[in-house]
């Protein structure tokens, strides 16, 4: 039984909880069992927020716990200012990857793990959606980095979950995130 674990780092209002709730049906479509866990806090806009997703390889595999993710395989950091105040790499598993929303390159970031991917999600969100909310871009990045869910399934989940007037822009944001995430170590593990 393999459980893959994802942790989102963001600030309140950046859509981390929504991201977890949208990637979940995408992963289910992919034929996996899935659990999306928001951090249960009293945080407000601007305060650090976490969300978690766990998923398996097949739909009938059990996810035995309902706890937060302390040992992630993937970390998605939606706000690079958090790098100064949080250890986004805490508990990262061997072979795990961190994805950071930044215009900088991995070498310029002070993140001491083997696999760091970057995406200028802020710019993409502005282009595609006309806002600063980067969560759907991040989902595209996740698809690219993990290889565990197709971008088509991510887009379908976005279409299902988002209100009609913002579905297309967010789907586009995800596609662009998928295409434009820099993955320095090459093709994603399957």
């Amino acid at each position: 039984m393999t459980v893959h674990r994802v942790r989102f780092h963001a600030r309140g209002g950046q859509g981390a909880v929504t991201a977890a709730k949208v990637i979940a049906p995408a992963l289910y479509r992919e034929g996996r069992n899935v659990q999306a866990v928001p951090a249960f806090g009293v945080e407000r806009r601007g305060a650090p927020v976490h969300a978690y997703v766990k998923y398996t390889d097949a739909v009938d595999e059990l996810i035995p716990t309902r706890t937060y993710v302390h040992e992630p395989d993937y970390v998605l950091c939606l706000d690079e200012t958090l790098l100064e105040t949080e250890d986004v790499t805490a508990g990262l598993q061997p072979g795990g990857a961190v994805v950071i929303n930044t215009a900088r390159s991995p070498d310029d970031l002070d993140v001491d793990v083997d696999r760091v991917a970057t995406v200028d999600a802020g710019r993409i969100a502005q282009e595609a959606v006309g806002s600063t909310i980067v969560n759907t871009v991040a989902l595209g990045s996740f698809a690219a980095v993990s290889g565990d869910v197709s971008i088509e399934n991510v887009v379908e989940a976005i279409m299902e979950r988002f209100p009609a007037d913002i579905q297309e822009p967010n789907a586009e944001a995800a596609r662009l995130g998928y295409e434009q995430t820099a993955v320095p170590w090459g093709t994603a593990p399957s």
Partner: protein
Amino acid sequence: MTAEQPRVTPEPTDETAAETRVLTGNEAAAHGAKLARPEVVSAYPITPQSAISETMAGFVASGELDAKLFRIESEHSAMSSLIGASLTGARTFTATASNGLFYMAEMLHFASGGRLPIVMAVANRAASPPWNVWGDQSDSLSQRDSGWIQLYAENCQEALDLLIQAYRIAESDDVMLPAMVAFDGFQVSHISEPVVIPSQEAVDDFLPPYDPEDSLAQSLVDGDPKAFHHITPPEASFFEYKYRQAQAGERAKDRIEEVDRLFGERFGRRWGGLFDPYRVDDAGVVLVTLGSLTTTAKAVADEYREKDLPVGVLKLRSFRPFPEDELATVLEDVPVVGVVEKDHSFGLTGSVYGDVAAALTNVDGQLTQNFVTGLGGREVTTEHIREMYDALLETHDTGCVDRRSRWVGVSR
């Protein structure tokens, strides 16, 4: 009583024409309630169940649910208004947690004494102060004497299924008692996972409309003025009324078993009735669980069995009525029984432990232990469950209990 293990992500059958969606526990509960077609809904917002009221309001506003929805001003009034509505013969629904449940405590007794089959979802939450909105089971467990049926769901799917089942159980002619469906606040209410939503047609077929013999509506229509809940002095029939109420509580056990079986036949999912024993038959040590910890306990039990350690899990689903005899029978050959719960009753022990220990009191040489954990939403990990099994195995080996109650996960 042994369930066929439901698949982790159950596939819908053609018969039930269902769809599978990734839902939170709150959403699943709301869907379950909606499918039961309540006619009057009255709920007050409280973390962690507010999403249930919001989702129900959404269903009513969109026309998916034809119900009167009260923007009610308190939990006490929520239950009061449903008591009034239920008396007319309408099917009713509410949801609450913790402080809200405590606030309506007076009315819980009114509903059960009134023999009104109101159904309520409880997103289990801790009792404050210190102020804490996170999940533990103190709220519903502390209301165990209120006369309500109490059923505990392990995950989002079971929450949905139990909401539908609760109406059928509660409204049975020989029961007519209110029922609460409890599930962990946050650990179930807020977590999203795949859930099968049965079709309305299939649920209508399974759950007929509520049509009680006696009601204010019937009384008006018949031109036969009936008096409900009138003053009943000591020498009048109060004591007899209560006896009949108690008997109904006993009969609820049969209904819980029956409805689980019928639900399984119709929808392809059985959850076990009063309880669900897992690898209990040849166990030397069994951990009794309630709610979502069951999933973790079963995973750890499998791990221990791989190492030839004879452990099992007994998932208690019905806390009220408490299946004393049935529990004693299924556990009679198990030398050591532990109970894990997220509450404490008084001193160091919990409510569930008290009832389990009393039920097993006549089994010779059996040892029991209590584990209190997870209060105020504190995480309960596989490591904690291993600690519990290790303690039970040690008890099994030494033949004596070193500490009757352990608080697992607390820093001293």
